[in-house]
């Protein structure tokens, strides 16, 4: 064999599986030795962002704990599609108790590990946005406030998808769900509501809070790995598009996550003890409209009777995120520095 040209990979990026990266810099998912914490064969929908996000996150957490990880899971899509007996997909010790108590169950597990002197065993709790921002919020806040040694991961697909796409406190304004119908004067979910749990987590002053999307595997892995180096309460909020609930093509999940980030709709950042320490900059800013248009849950904003004013309001929300977190270059020098720092950390943390 002669010289084989590499056509599809750019140098200097962290594209998934990039063979031009040194082994140390490659993502955990590109490693044949990854734990594959959620086995194939589960019943998630095609293109499920949550299944992807959970595998990325839990594989990284397993690696970060050297295989000594226990997971508590809230009721929801993730729990339902992964566990019908006898087909559990979980390759790590895993418990599901209730919809609203994953954080507290994890606290109990962490307490048991502490009392038994099993200090190397780490605990992760996970749930969807319903189980986190709504019904599980009390237990989550309690776990944060006590600074229990738990990493809580929220897979945010912006609604109750398991029960048939109803509104949660993470559903964005204007989105159609089964309980925010596209009728009346203000079709879809209303403006001025909703709960920003990453910021609420920061307000607890816990050691580590981060957001991530399934579009940036390396950033997601870095944040989980970093969280695993810290003790105390930690929170990672992962943006996971839902083809079923959003009305997007199942092969568009990564793209939708990327558009959410690139439009400023979903700010990707990390924070320590309540202070933002790093943001992922927008690389190629796009108008929010480009993010909304492919989604059927926003279809009522387009078409024959468009609602440009609603789209403009959503753009304003994204603009506010961009200003607040300094998502564009030149907005905040401190954030730039933090981002550089993040990049360095990401590289140093990249290998196994």
């Amino acid at each position: 064999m002669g010289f084989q040209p590499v056509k599809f990979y750019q140098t200097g990026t962290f594209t998934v599986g990039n063979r031009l990266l040194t082994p140390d810099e490659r993502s955990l998912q590109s490693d044949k030795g990854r734990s594959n914490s959620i086995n194939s064969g589960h019943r998630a929908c095609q293109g499920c962002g949550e299944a992807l996000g959970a595998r990325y996150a839990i594989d990284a957490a397993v690696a970060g704990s050297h295989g000594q990880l226990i997971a508590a899971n809230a009721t929801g899509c993730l729990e339902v599609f992964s566990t019908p007996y006898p087909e559990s997909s979980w390759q790590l010790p895993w418990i599901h108790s209730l919809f609203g108590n994953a954080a507290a169950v994890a606290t109990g597990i962490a307490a048991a590990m502490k009392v038994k002197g099993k200090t190397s065993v780490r605990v992760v709790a996970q749930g969807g946005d319903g189980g986190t921002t709504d019904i599980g919020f009390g237990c989550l806040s309690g776990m944060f406030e006590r600074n229990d040694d738990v990493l809580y991961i929220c897979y945010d697909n912006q609604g109750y998808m398991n029960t048939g796409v109803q509104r949660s406190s993470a559903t964005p304004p204007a989105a159609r769900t089964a309980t925010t119908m596209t009728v009346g004067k203000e079709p879809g979910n209303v403006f001025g509501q909703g709960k920003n749990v990453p910021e609420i987590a920061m307000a607890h002053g816990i050691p580590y809070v981060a957001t991530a999307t399934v579009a940036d595997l390396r950033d997601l892995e870095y944040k989980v790995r970093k969280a695993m180096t810290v003790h105390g309460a930690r929170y990672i909020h992962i943006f996971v598009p839902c083809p079923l609930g959003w009305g997007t093509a199942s092969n568009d999940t990564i793209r939708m996550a990327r558009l959410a980030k690139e439009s400023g709709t979903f700010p990707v950042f990390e924070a320590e003890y309540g202070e933002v320490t790093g943001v992922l900059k927008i690389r190629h800013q796009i108008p929010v409209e480009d993010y909304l248009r492919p989604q059927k849950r926003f279809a009522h904003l387009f078409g024959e009777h468009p609602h440009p004013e609603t789209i403009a309001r959503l753009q304003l929300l994204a603009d506010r995120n961009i200003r607040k977190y300094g998502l564009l270059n030149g907005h905040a020098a401190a954030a730039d520095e933090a981002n550089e720092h993040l990049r360095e950390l990401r590289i140093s943390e990249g290998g196994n």
Partner: protein
Amino acid sequence: MLKQIEGSKAVAEAIGLCRPEVICAYPISPQTHIVEALGEMVKSGELTPCEFINVESEFAAMSVAIGASAAGARAYTATASQGLLFMAEAVYNASGLGLPIVMTVANRAIGAPINIWNDHSDSLSQRDSGWMQLFAETNQEAVDLHIQAFRLAEELSMPIMVCMDGFILTHAFERVDIPSQQQVDAYLPPFEPRQVLDPAEPVSIGAMVGPEAFMEVRYLAHAKQMQALELIPQLAAEFKERFNRDSGGLVRTYCIEDAETVIIAMGSVLGTIKDTVDEMRAEGHKIGVLGIISYRPFPLEQVRRALLSCRRFLVLEKSLAVGMGGIVATDVRMAVTGAGLKGYTAIAGLGGRPILKSSLHALFRRAQAEALPPVTFLDLDWDVVNKQLARERTTRRSGPVAENILYDKGIVSAKFG
């Protein structure tokens, strides 16, 4: 060691002797003194290793206990009343998962109207939760039942409530024999879980179960309680051998050999009932008492055997099945199906209404004369009830019921009795 001690403190000392590894604490009267005392033991280093966790709700208390128990730790919490209802979803979950958590229920009424005093509405509302429920008659028995409860729960891998009357027991100072650590260690081996979250041997606990297996899982919960019917007397017998004390078991009888009338009850009111029965016996009445210690599992056979030679029975209970009558009474009637006995129900002591010996004398005599209606509300103030009913008949906006009753009674609650 004999001590003059508050019931809550005595129970806390007993719990401490059982070497719990995770204790979840959330304040609710009247159980609060128990977790306070345990917290002090943990913080001072007297009880170690143990994690004492101040949680943000009862729902979290039971959830933390679930996590701890599933991870192999001996877990304990205590609650009452609204707290038990607030954790109800997790209560069912703990038994569904087969986790041997021990919980003290300092029995208290359920609002509205809000009321902190004793009755049995709280734990009886969890009748079908899959938890075992043992009722203590005295503080000594509360201490002893907790020690037996850990053993029972862990042998069956099912959770258990030890129920003690709020305030009447929890806040009463009386003589209690607190066993030694050596005695308890000899009786209660370390917790060996049937299932455990362990990275060396990963299992999925709490996975989804469809119609193909759900009934079997539920039946096995029932089967565990049927096993408990065998185990509870054995554990009580072994307890007697080691601690030299009669405590626990399924039922306890008093003067029933020749009794024509048997009074049935649970918890501390049995003391007042026995005193009343003693006085009536002295007057020649053939009356006896059947105390139910194990409410769940319900000892149908033992209750039937105890009642078969009597002519009539009266279930005096601190609970009300609204729209029906008695809760315990229904179980007792089930036990004596076809025996041809006259059965009566007396609802008494709701929300801490004192159960007076004078009232019991009158009630028991009417039972003996078979002159009671099927359901009696002991010492109910019919005047205020009728007044309120009349008010509702005549005025559409008749106002809040409890406030009207208080107005009509014209007293503050502390002055009753």
